[in-house]
């Protein structure tokens, strides 16, 4: 039973365009959400987070949107750069350790 779902295993975007990565969750107790980026042979690195009391958090090229009623969040990267090519994991937290989605592989094409 997957509590955090990333339904798109992969995404290709042209350099300079917007990348939108989506994530859905089922557990209404989740109240903090994070995005991690992972390169091959490395551990995931924290990217951006959002609390459930907000609906948007922005950090440079990265913006996370949260729609609590739909139990949906998305990560927007604009403009996309080739160095953004990686696997992106959505994660959610309540009082237990992070629950991760399966990840979306983003490929930014020059």
């Amino acid at each position, binding site marked *: 039973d997957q509590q*955090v779902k*990333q339904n798109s295993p992969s995404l290709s975007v042209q350099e300079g365009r917007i990348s939108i990565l989506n994530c859905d969750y089922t557990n209404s107790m989740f109240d*903090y959400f*994070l995005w*991690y980026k992972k390169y091959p*042979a*490395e*551990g*995931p*690195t*924290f990217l951006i*987070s959002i*609390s459930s009391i907000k609906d948007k958090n922005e950090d440079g090229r990265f913006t996370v949107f949260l729609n609590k009623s739909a139990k949906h969040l998305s990560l927007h990267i604009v403009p996309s750069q080739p160095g953004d090519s990686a696997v992106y*994991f959505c*994660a959610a*937290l309540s*009082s*237990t*350790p*992070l*629950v*991760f*989605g*399966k*990840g979306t592989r983003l490929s930014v094409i020059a």
Partner: protein
Amino acid sequence: EAGVTQSPTHLIKTRGQQATLRCSPISGHTSVYWYQQALGLGLQFLLWYDEGEERNRGNFPPRFSGRQFPNYSSELNVNALELEDSALYLCASSLLVGGYAEAFFGQGTRLTVV
């Protein structure tokens, strides 16, 4: 400041053997988490230690166990290895403040069971 360090980076074991994986958290972090990333799957939560105690456990059999030492470093033990235990094992650490904390990950230990 040193990040989360894991050893070894690669480990090859035969079926039925035991594997021991080690993790040193970021200095000052008291919580250590273990995750398994098997091929085609996301990060599956294994174990959470905080202040030397096991706080939570994922849906894994008892042959997956671990401990946290007084210096907050941690060890993951996998007994009676099976082929499907082959995966990347990631350790993360955090400092719990108000219940929320970003977890910082190590580079992982690639375990191969043959």
